[in-house]
C-alpha cells in the first residue's frame, strides 16, 4: 500500500483515530509519519487546523478518509472543466470550479460532514421574495422592540446628561443600577 500523504513510498505505519464517533484510518510511510509527529506538516489552507484537531493535514482534504484499495494504482482524478487535480485540492483546500463539486463529491462529503455537520443544502424559494419579506418583518421588530422601564430610564439619563443636569443624571443612574440589581437576583 502506498503512503496516503506522499503517494510514493510504501505505507508502513497504520493509525486509527476516532473523531465524533467516526473512525478514520491513516496509512503513512515512516518519513511522513515522523514529519507529522514533529509537526512539520503545517496547514497551508487557512481552515486546515480548524477542522483537523487531532491529526493535522495540509488542508480540509488532508487525508483520504477511507482505506485505499491495496491493488489499485493511486487514482489521479482531475476535474474535466478546470483541470484541478486531487493533489491541488488537498494542498489548497479550494475547489477550482463548480464542476469540481461533482468531480470530487466523494472526497467532499466527509469534509462537509466534519466541517459543516450537514451534507445537503436546505432549499429556499428560488425568487428569494419570501426571504426578503421575512427579513423585513424581523428588522421592523429589531427597530421597534418595546422599551422596558430600564431602557426608558436610560433614555431619560441621556437627556439629563445632554442638558448637563448631573443631579438628575445621578438619581437616574442609581435607579437604573437598582433595577439591574433586581433583575440579576
Amino acid at each position, binding site marked *: 500500500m502506498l503512503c496516503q500523504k506522499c503517494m510514493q513510498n510504501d505505507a508502513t505505519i497504520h493509525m486509527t483515530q476516532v473523531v465524533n464517533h467516526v473512525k478514520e484510518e491513516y496509512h503513512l510511510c515512516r518519513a511522513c509519519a515522523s514529519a507529522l509527529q514533529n509537526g512539520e506538516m503545517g496547514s497551508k489552507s*487557512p*481552515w486546515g487546523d480548524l477542522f483537523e484537531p487531532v491529526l493535522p493535514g495540509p488542508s*480540509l482534504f488532508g487525508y483520504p478518509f477511507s482505506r485505499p484499495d491495496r491493488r489499485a494504482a493511486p487514482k489521479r482524478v482531475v476535474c474535466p*472543466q*478546470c*483541470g*484541478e487535480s486531487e493533489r491541488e485540492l488537498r494542498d*489548497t*483546500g*479550494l*475547489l*477550482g*470550479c*463548480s464542476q469540481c*463539486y461533482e468531480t470530487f463529491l466523494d472526497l*467532499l462529503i466527509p*469534509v*462537509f460532514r466534519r*466541517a*459543516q*455537520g*450537514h*451534507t*445537503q*443544502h*436546505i*432549499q*429556499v424559494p428560488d*425568487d*428569494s*421574495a419570501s*426571504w*426578503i419579506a*421575512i*427579513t*423585513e418583518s*424581523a*428588522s421592523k*421588530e*429589531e*427597530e421597534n*422592540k418595546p422599551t422596558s422601564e430600564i431602557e426608558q430610564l*436610560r433614555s431619560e*439619563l441621556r437627556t439629563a*446628561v445632554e442638558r448637563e443636569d*448631573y443631579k438628575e*443624571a*445621578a438619581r437616574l*443612574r442609581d435607579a*437604573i*443600577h437598582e433595577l*439591574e*440589581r433586581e433583575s*440579576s437576583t
Partner: protein
Amino acid sequence: MTWYLQEGPENDVVISTRIRLARNLKDVSFPWRLSPVELESVRDRVTSAFRDVVRDMGSERPVIVELNTLGDIESCALAEKRIISRAMLKDTRGKSLLLYPGESDGILVNEEDHLRLYSVGAGLCLFKTAGCVIKCAADMEKRLSFAKSDRLGYLTACPTNTGTGMRASAMLHVPGLIRAGVIKRLADRLTKAGYALRGAEGEGSDAYGDMIQLSNQVTLGVSEEQILTDLDRFVHDVAEEERKARRALYENDPPALEDEIGRAKGKLLFSRLMTTEEAMRLLSLVRLGKELELPEMPSYSTLQELFIGIGEGVLQQAAGKPLDPRNRDEERARRIREALRSSM
C-alpha cells in the same frame, strides 16, 4: 450615511453587524484558477450588472474602485474600515470594490469568490442587514447566472462557505468579559454550537480594543433564517453576560473604575502624541464609561468614528498626505482631542 456615524440597537455592547454572501458565476472557474485576463473579464461582467442594478434603483452614481489603481494609503484605509481584507491587497489584479451609495453595502469582486456581497449596520441588526444584502444578491442574480446545485446550494471556492454562502457576524465590545477572564470558556461553548468567537481583526487575532467578533461557521444544511435567529440569540446572551460582568466590575470598587476611566479620558483630551495601541486601549475604557452611563462621556457614534479614524491609513487619507510615524501620532492625538471636545 455610513454605519459608524449612526447608533443602533444594543449599542451598549454591539458595535456593528456585518453579513456577507459568497456567489460565483456559473461556467467560470473560481478566481484562484483564473489568469489576469480572465479575472478582468469576470470583473467587467459583474461591474456591468452592478451599474444596471444601481441605475434601476434610480440611485446616485455608484462608486467603482479597481484595487490595482489604489495607492498604499487608500488601500490601508479600506482595510481599516474593514471593507476589504488585508489578504486581498497581496495581489490586486482584476479585483475591484463596488459600493452602493452610502458605503454600508458593497460587492468585492474576485476575492476568494467572484462576488462577495456585504452589508454593515450599526449595533445589532442582523435581519435588517441581511435584508439589504439578500436584496442586492437577488438583484444581481436577475442579471447574472450564479453557480448552484439542488443538493449543495450556492457553490463556493472553499467548502466552508458552500450552501447559503452566508457569513453573519457581530462585533462586540466586551471589556467586562475580558477582565473576568471568561472569553475562552465562552468561545468553547459557541464552537460546540457551530459559531465562532474571534478577536476583532479576524482569525487568530487578539481582542484588540476589547472587541470580539461572533459569527456562524455552518453554511450548509441550515437556512439563512435559522443562522440569523441562532446568532441573534447568542449575541443577546453574550451581551447580557457582558452587562453583568461590567456591573460586577463597577460595583466591586466604583471609585477605582471611575478613576481609571477618568484618567483615560484625561489622556485622550490632553495628549499631544498617541500611538494606535494606546488610543485603542484608552478609547475602550472611555467607551466602557459611556456604557456604564457615567456622566460627560462622548456619544457612541463619536467613539465608533474614532475607533476607525485613528488607523494609519484613514488618518493619512484625512490629512491628504503621507505622514511619518511621529507625525501620525501627533495627528492622531489632535483628531482625538477635537472629536472628544466637540462631542461632550
